[in-house]
């Protein structure tokens, strides 16, 4: 793929020449003739948490009108572990109204996204996010992204300690460059402030890097789908350390068998005090050994896959100058969120609420956004974003429960959902994401309703099935670890994957390629019928389709698309 190489050198070159992520962003912001930034700079703004997007629905029509595409920007704010205060929630809410498209998107990485921000409003929006004590630096780009952590305080009495570790890692791996402060916050560069990136170096990482922390038995963060993971080991209500996982990742390219999703593997155990040191050295190994000549082969998972776990472990331990301990036993039982009210160890309450596709918006169904604004104005508890794009109002005093319920009722916020929808997730896709080949967020709810009808037809509506959809194979909604995964191929056409495990420790396999809605429903109808008649007591759907040979059990990412090879 020599042509891709050409482009790849491009991104590496851009980073290298960017003068620590400055490029010509400032000049681009001043240019009034275009709503966009220079192409090279759009690579750099990702490191600042900003994606340039264009309205793809109107692109061709506008060209006819001799008008440039309608550009706007997606801004992603980092929220380590997904926890924010009511006042931070209010700040995002206000920015969405003034500069965004009047909605807030909760992401699969427990972060905030604002969509539709125009170039002329970028600077002010970013400045206001920062004054709310959130930031956007490294929310995207070839660096460590938002650090995820199981958000439910009722998971364990030791939750706070795990969350603290997440924040430490996040802080430790934040880029050092002062470019961000100069460009967005008008901080002048001083003579003495020399840019230096002790961890990343001036070309940063070869590709994005994702870190998560999970608190068993919940695998809500999909620990095996990320570059680096820490599984909290808690004994006697005290965090003693973490099992370390490496080498997971979702993204691949249609038709390119050199690319594949991969699951992370456990390589040992470290204490809570050692966690930043481990994270730093893992990142540095990827910095030094990751493939910078081919962006499609640049993720950490390929570094691990190409060289093997033994090599990696020895490289890591050599750099650490100490050895990881043997992994400790752990057990995961679920990935979904437990909806409704729950009680914490300190007797405070949490309310976990299903948010369709993570989109906080007022629409004809309910005034979701207004309701949360009003709750935030009470200034009680915390807002916690889950890895499934849902929301927890956490640590609420019992006395405030009725007030919260009254507000939710007032704005017709109803959370009665189904097992299928509760376990479903979709990425943003069309019309703003430039990678999308098919709809996801705008379409999944509709498809789910029809799948649910099939479940009802076969009386399996009480069986939870993890269902996920993305508009492209980069996998933002982690479709390759779903029991039913849909990955967009073209308008109205999806690849259908089956056989991921319920708890997320097995990849799925391509079952049907490039099929439309009616074919999807036909296929599922047949399998659901079989499932309803022949499942062994409480057998999960993902396990069933493997036992019945609809797909094979996948043990390595390269087998996810083995079907494609057979057809060719």
């Amino acid at each position, binding site marked *: 793929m020599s042509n891709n190489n050409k482009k790849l050198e491009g991104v590496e070159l851009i980073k290298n020449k960017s003068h620590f992520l400055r490029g010509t962003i400032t000049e681009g912001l001043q240019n*009034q003739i*275009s*709503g966009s930034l220079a192409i090279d700079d759009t690579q750099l703004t990702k490191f600042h948490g900003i994606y340039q997007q264009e309205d793809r629905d109107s692109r*061709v029509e506008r060209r006819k009108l001799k008008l440039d595409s309608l550009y706007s920007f997606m801004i992603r704010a980092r929220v380590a572990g997904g926890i924010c205060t009511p006042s931070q929630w209010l700040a995002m809410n206000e920015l969405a109204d003034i500069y965004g498209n009047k909605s807030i998107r909760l992401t699969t990485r427990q972060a905030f996204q604002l969509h539709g921000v125009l170039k002329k409003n970028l600077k002010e929006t970013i400045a206001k996010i920062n004054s709310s004590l959130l930031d956007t630096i490294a929310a995207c780009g070839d660096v460590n992204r938002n650090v995820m952590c199981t958000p439910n305080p009722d998971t364990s009495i030791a939750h706070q300690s795990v969350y603290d570790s997440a924040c430490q890692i996040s802080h430790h791996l934040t880029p050092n460059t002062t470019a961000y402060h100069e460009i967005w916050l008008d901080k002048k560069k001083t003579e003495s402030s020399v840019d230096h990136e002790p961890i990343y170096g001036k070309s940063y990482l070869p590709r994005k890097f994702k870190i998560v922390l999970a608190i068993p038995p919940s695998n809500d963060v999909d620990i095996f789908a990320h570059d680096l993971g820490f599984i909290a080991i808690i004994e006697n209500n005290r965090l003693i350390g973490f099992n370390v996982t490496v080498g997971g990742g979702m993204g691949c390219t249609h*038709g390119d068998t050199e690319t594949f999703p991969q699951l992370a593997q456990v390589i040992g155990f470290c204490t809570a005090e050692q966690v930043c040191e481990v994270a730093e050295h893992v990142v540095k190994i990827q910095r030094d050994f990751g493939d910078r000549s081919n962006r499609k082969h640049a993720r950490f998972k390929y570094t691990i896959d190409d060289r093997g776990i033994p090599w990696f472990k020895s490289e890591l331990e050599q750099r650490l100058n100490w050895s990881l301990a043997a992994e400790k036993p752990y057990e995961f039982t679920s990935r979904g969120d437990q909806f409704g009210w729950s009680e914490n160890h300190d007797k405070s309450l949490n309310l976990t609420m299903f948010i369709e596709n993570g989109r906080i918006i007022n629409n004809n169904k309910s005034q979701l956004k207004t309701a949360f604004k009003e709750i935030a104005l009470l200034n009680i508890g915390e807002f916690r974003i889950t890895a499934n794009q849902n929301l927890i109002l956490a640590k609420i005093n019992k006395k405030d429960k009725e007030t919260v319920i009254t507000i939710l009722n007032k704005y017709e916020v109803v959370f009665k959902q189904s097992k299928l929808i509760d376990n479903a997730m979709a990425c943003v896709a069309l019309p703003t994401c430039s990678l999308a080949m098919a709809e996801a967020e705008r379409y999944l709810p509709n498809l789910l309703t029809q799948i649910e009808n099939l479940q009802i037809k076969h009386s399996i509506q009480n069986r939870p099935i993890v269902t996920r959809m993305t508009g492209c194979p980069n996998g933002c909604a982690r479709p390759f670890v779903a029991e039913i995964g849909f990955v967009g191929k*073209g*308008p109205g056409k999806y690849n259908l994957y089956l056989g991921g495990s319920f708890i997320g420790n097995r990849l799925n396999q391509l079952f049907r390629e490039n099929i439309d809605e009616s074919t999807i429903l036909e296929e599922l109808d047949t399998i659901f019928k079989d499932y309803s008649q022949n499942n062994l007591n409480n057998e999960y759907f993902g396990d069933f389709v493997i036992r019945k040979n609809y797909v094979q059990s996948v043990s390595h990412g390269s087998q996810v698309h083995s079907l494609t090879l057979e057809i060719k």
Partner: protein
Amino acid sequence: MYSDLNPLEPLALEQLNNVIQAIQGFSPQQKMWLSGYLAGLSTHETSIVSDKATEIQLSILYGSQTGNCRLLAEKFADACQSKGFSFQLTSLSEYKPRNISKEKYLVIIVSTHGEGEAPDDAALFYEYLFSDKNPNLKNLEYSVLALGDSSYEKYCQTGVDIDNQLKKLGAKSIINRVDCDLDYQELADKWQLETIEHFGNILAKSENNITPLSLIKPYSKNSYNRNNTYSSEILSLQKITTQNSVKNVYHIELNIEDSSITYQVGDSLGVVAQNSESKINDFIKNNNFDPHKLLNHKEQSTEFKQALMNLEISLINKSFLKFYADLGHSDKLKEIVDDHQKFIAYVSKRQVMDLLTEFPTNITEQQLIDNLVKITPRLYSIASSYINNPDELHLTIALVESSSVSPSHGLVSGLLCNQAAEGDQIQVYVEKNDHFKLPKNNDTPIIMIGAGTGIAPFRGFLQERKHLNAQGDNWLFFGNPSFENDFLYQLELQNYYKDKTLKRIDLAFSRDQDQKIYVQDRIKQQAQDIWQWLEKGAHLYICGNKDFMAKEVEAELICLIEKFGNKSTEQAHNYLKILKLNKRYQKDVY
């Protein structure tokens, strides 16, 4: 002729030196023109053949979604370069689809995305090819490379469609189309090799056979005028504001290829409209006239309805009103005629038909056509440069809703923007405007200030200055209500900015923020720089609305001359007056 000369050294050294000296400082375009000119002189005694300044032999077009086709096209172009072919490499998004009928040799590299859809870049080209325009392509030889992904049902469909349609339109495929899957490189290389081999035979031959180029048609006598109009075909009629815009602005391209029409940037185009069929029918029916009554009109026998086509029945003019008042012995009407204020108030809201209804008389068909005046042509600033494209003339026209201003204003814009269609003919002539001309010296900087359709002549200015490779700096001020919906010619202006034809651009979008911002506000912000440009000898142009924009801008100009030139108000006015006298300050306002 050169038989007695060494074929490799046809010129003596001295002659050669003379030539080199003579063409020193010529732009590449000028050199290319000159080469054709000399070739023309050598083969014919006169020098008129083609009407294009340059002849591109091979066009390489690509439509790319992810960039692969672009890279392949660039590779193809590299190969052509090394073979010494004359070629042009263009993205389909930049390519004017109807130029395809002028191509002789064509290479298309195009991908397919989704379910057999053309990539965004190629969408308009694709649409044109399958439109009912049916361009005749029987002189075209081409080769198509199609990229796709065989896991899709409609594999390489866009390439397949284009190939089939080109054949259907008469073009000849020189080698079979090649369809490539994801691993396209090998097949693409093979296709490139074969295509170049084939074209190599033709293009190499034509090297020895330089096509002589024409002299540009001289700009002097325009045989057309308001009484002798040219019937020009509408090549393109495109709305260039979005649905959300408060304005309806159209870009119109007219065909003048076969006419003797020439013009200079800054000139206007007179458009002569006729009354619409439905309007005439209403007029006749309302007054129970006989549409077929034969009358004596301009010493010819004409049917009443026919005669009405070219007479002004929208706008009421004073002489007609006077005649009508006398005819009906109406004191009230006479009063209106005698008081200009009342007259203006009266006619601003009424058309001739309203007058006949309000004050009925026994007016005859003959009396009507004897007293109504001929429809006045409407003048529009030309929005293109003749030397840049002698085949076409472009206009930028805002559709004025007839109810919003006076009844007459919308006649021509309504005709052009609402009723006419591509392919229709309209009656036009060029109206010279000596008071809105680019500086004679191409090195002189210019400042252009325009709002709304006031951008029109400046589009021509920019085309012309780019074509001439003029070294003078160009600065544009432009204003309209919204960046998103009515930034007229945004894509073109972006290109001019990118290639430095436009040195500076300042924009005022009045409704994009709470506080309204107009071009005059931008003038104020940039006052010091404007003053510096004026002191450097810049020419200043204003085009657009007379009352709202031009007055305000002029006030700001006076301010900045006072402030930065250290002058009294009177001196500042004088300064501007002198600029005017020296033709350095020119206005085209309406």
